[in-house]
């Protein structure tokens, strides 16, 4: 198991632990190999409780406009002459009998008595009368004074997914962890540091950061993997022991599955599936699926070779990075994207490799490497403005649209999808 990023926290005791401890029902000891790299990143408790709020009704937006509906009538400059009002509701409401009384009332507006007399409407003035006498109620006051209490001292370790590449972790330890450590080792705490650790259960990698007994943290992670976070004590060459650990989170793929159905009734070739993706609006994925072809493992190898040629180095371990992510980055760079623009769209591990080879990142190199190993033709790609705003209460996501030029497959496959560097979905 590879472990990375840790550093002693100032003030940690020096001596070596010699025995295991179990501090609470969640606790267990986990030994790991010594970490390979170190860096300092002290995580501070960031759990924010909002300040006490005062009840105020939300203000509607104020639009600074002239009240021209109430201004002098404007001349009829509109090309549209007045017509009889005919809306769906109005026209379809013929079935609804509007009483004569109501019609008459509608012609004689403006007085407050209209509501109760002329329209014979069911006014409900008793609403207010039925209200509790809230002003003097002790219960009312108790409920009006809204505030969140401090969270009780508890063991908490909860990992939540925000996106396939970002997790949120919050934690707290009920008892002073250092007291727990001391109860086992006495004063011989050596160089132990309280840390939070995120383990990629699929790839077998770990990320360790010094932390405090309570706080929260955002992790950059990989799609299509499984993670668990924990709080524990770490020291070089001494046993690691865990204090609390979280639930596990599976991050989803952010690209199509490489696996067609095994049942012949549902199986689909890569080229046909690319067509299916394209008609669903996922044209970037369609392009990638078509480019990778049916032999996913061969495509993975080819991708790694092409990428190594692109960056001029075979030293980087690409096994933990998805081939789709690598192709995505190369195609985007080939289309003129900068590394900065890619930063939030590819995994942090891939981004680090690209950053380390930044001087070799140019569109020509990327396209040359892709063209050599994949059946694609040269093309120009230009970004178009995105369209994601929507009406209504939901922020529903839409594919981002780009100007594209057709890019055809050299292999003469029946379907040659268009390439959209970051389109097809707005999931990146």
């Amino acid at each position, binding site marked *: 198991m590879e472990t990375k990023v840790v550093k002693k926290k100032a003030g940690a005791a020096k001596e070596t632990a010699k025995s295991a401890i179990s501090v609470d029902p969640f606790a267990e000891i986990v030994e790991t190999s010594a970490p390979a790299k170190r860096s300092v990143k002290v995580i501070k408790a960031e759990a924010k409780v909002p300040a006490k709020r005062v009840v105020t009704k939300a203000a509607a937006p104020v639009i600074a406009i002239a009240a021209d509906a109430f201004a002098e009538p404007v001349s009829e400059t509109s090309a549209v002459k007045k017509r009889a009002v005919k809306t769906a509701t109005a026209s379809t409401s013929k079935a609804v009998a509007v009483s004569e009384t109501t019609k008459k009332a509608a012609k004689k507006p403006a007085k407050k008595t209209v509501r109760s007399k002329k329209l014979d409407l069911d006014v409900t003035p008793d609403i207010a009368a039925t209200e509790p006498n809230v002003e003097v109620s002790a219960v009312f006051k108790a409920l009006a004074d809204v505030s969140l209490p401090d969270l009780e001292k508890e063991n908490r370790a909860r990992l939540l997914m925000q996106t396939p590449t970002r997790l949120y972790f919050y934690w707290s330890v009920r008892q002073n962890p250092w007291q727990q450590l001391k109860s086992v080792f006495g004063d011989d705490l050596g160089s132990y540091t309280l840390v939070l650790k995120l383990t990629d259960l699929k790839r077998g990698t770990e990320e360790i950061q010094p932390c405090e007994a309570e706080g929260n943290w955002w992790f950059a992670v990989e799609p299509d993997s499984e993670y668990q976070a924990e709080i524990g004590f770490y020291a070089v060459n001494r046993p690691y022991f865990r204090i609390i650990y979280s639930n596990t989170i599976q991050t989803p793929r952010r690209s199509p599955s490489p696996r067609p159905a095994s049942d012949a009734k549902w199986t689909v070739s890569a080229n046909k599936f690319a067509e299916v993706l394209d008609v669903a*609006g996922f044209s970037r994925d369609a392009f990638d699926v078509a480019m990778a072809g049916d032999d996913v493992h061969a495509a993975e190898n080819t991708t790694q070779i092409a990428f190594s040629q692109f960056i001029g180095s075979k030293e980087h371990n690409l096994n933990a990075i998805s081939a789709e992510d690598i192709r995505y980055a190369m195609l985007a760079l080939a289309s003129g994207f900068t590394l900065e623009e890619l930063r939030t769209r590819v995994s942090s591990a891939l981004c680090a490799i690209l950053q380390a080879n930044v001087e070799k990142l140019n569109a020509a190199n990327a396209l040359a490497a892709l063209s050599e190993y994949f059946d694609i033709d040269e093309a120009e790609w230009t970004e178009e403005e995105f369209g994601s705003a929507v009406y209504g209460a939901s922020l529903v996501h839409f594919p981002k649209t780009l100007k594209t030029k057709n890019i055809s497959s050299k292999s003469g496959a029946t379907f040659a999808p268009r390439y959209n560097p970051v389109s097809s979905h707005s999931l990146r």
Partner: protein
Amino acid sequence: MPLGYFSLILHAHLPFVRHPEYPEFLEEDWLYEAITEVYLPLIFIFQTLHESGAKPRLAMNVSPPLCEMLADPLLQQRYTHHLENLIELAVKEEFRTRSESPEFHDVAKMYVENLISSLNLWNDRYKRNLVNAFKELQDEGVIEIITCCATHGFLPLISTLESRRAQVEIAVTNYKKHFGRQPRGIWLAECAYEPGIEDLLKTAGIEYFISDTHAILYGDPRPRYGVHAPVVTPNGTAVFARDVETSQQVWSAEIGYPGNDLYREFYRDIGWDAPLDYLKPHLHADGERRHLGLKYHRITGRDVPQNRKEPYIPAMARDKAAENAAHFIGERIKQAHKLRETFEGHPPLVISPYDAELYGHWWFEGPQFIDFFFKKIHFDQNEIECITPGDFLDSGLPIQVQKPTASSWGENGYYKVWINEGNSWMYPYQHDAERRMTELCLTAGCQPASVGGKASQKNEDTQAGSLRSDERILNQLARELLLAQSSDWAFQIYQGTTVQYSSRRFQSHIQRFNMLANMLETGDVDHELLSEIENRDNIFAEIDYRVYRN
């Protein structure tokens, strides 16, 4: 067999907002506006289409909080008052515009006619209870009503299995109360899915749920027909995923129909235009301006400033709605041809879900569009057939087995809207309450008698019938937890709209949960406080806390 199937799905949901402790409350207007602008027009259109033989067919989620509000006598009474007040203003406006602003007079007349029709429908046809109206439409075969998570809880961000299960099972129980049958489908709040949720649905007897596009497109194995056919999870629960093209066509602010220049401008409202003195009888007691729903201008142009908007002309907008409906159908036929060709003869199914409130509230002409859509699709063509997901399952067409991926329909496709730097502070409190709820239920399960001391002696309140104090507290604990879990609060905090109200609502439910839990644990029951909390947060009268036991 038609060329292709089309399934319109409307998601009607509002958070539970009910404040009996105040004579009036701004946020209750959300419900009142939706009744006037969305629910009444849609119900009336569906009923009229049905009676005319146009055979509309669609699925509609009427969320449990919305059902509870629509069936609530206090809110019904307050809505009546709200509508009457609006009619009074509209009538004043019709009189005023006749002489002062003739260019707006037709619109003013339209409002009077529409609102009076609405009042008649409300009082006479539906007896002030729109749940019955929806039920009637379902019983007549017009709509297939599906349920939703009990309080629109965002399941992947709920920490315990018991709390997730409660969101589903309480929703099903509530559905049965209102609609007298078992729901076939569920709208997972925000289409938020993660693997494993289908097991909760299966246990609750749910046959299918709605997901976002990539849940299926990125699922494993590759879906043979993409999102244009449902899949079933290995446990047999079917998944219907959103079609992107139809979403964009209606919903996109850039290319969507609602942005047409001829349609009514949403943000230009008499509540902000008219002199304050004139409006005062129609405002709340605080005299603050607010949207009142009478709007006189059309969009005019994307970049036209609010003070340069031109008068709204209903007849032209109506013609445009008819034109858009015809275009929409034309595009569906083209899409079906393309999909059928791609699928080598297999009939595609296009799932087209929207917030119901888009139709009428945000897009004033939306109900007209739906009216024209169903008329034209029935009378003018025979290539596309409108069905519901339940109809598709009944068709016997084979369905591929697949494991969908985690997803939501929110911005960027995952959970960012509901967990981010601005609202992550909520989750430790919510999760503590979730854990504590099950612990308290389990503890209560071990105690045959009610909580002791003052509690048992003071249990004189009749509101909760024959329930013991501890059972009342446990039931109310469940309500407070459910209300705290509403995804609406985190959403609005992220959106930056009604942040104070949403934060306060979340905090108040957590606070009430803690008050009640302490009563239960100490046995020191404040009956006045308990009754008041029950009176305010009275959602789900039928609730049984035992659903939280593991």
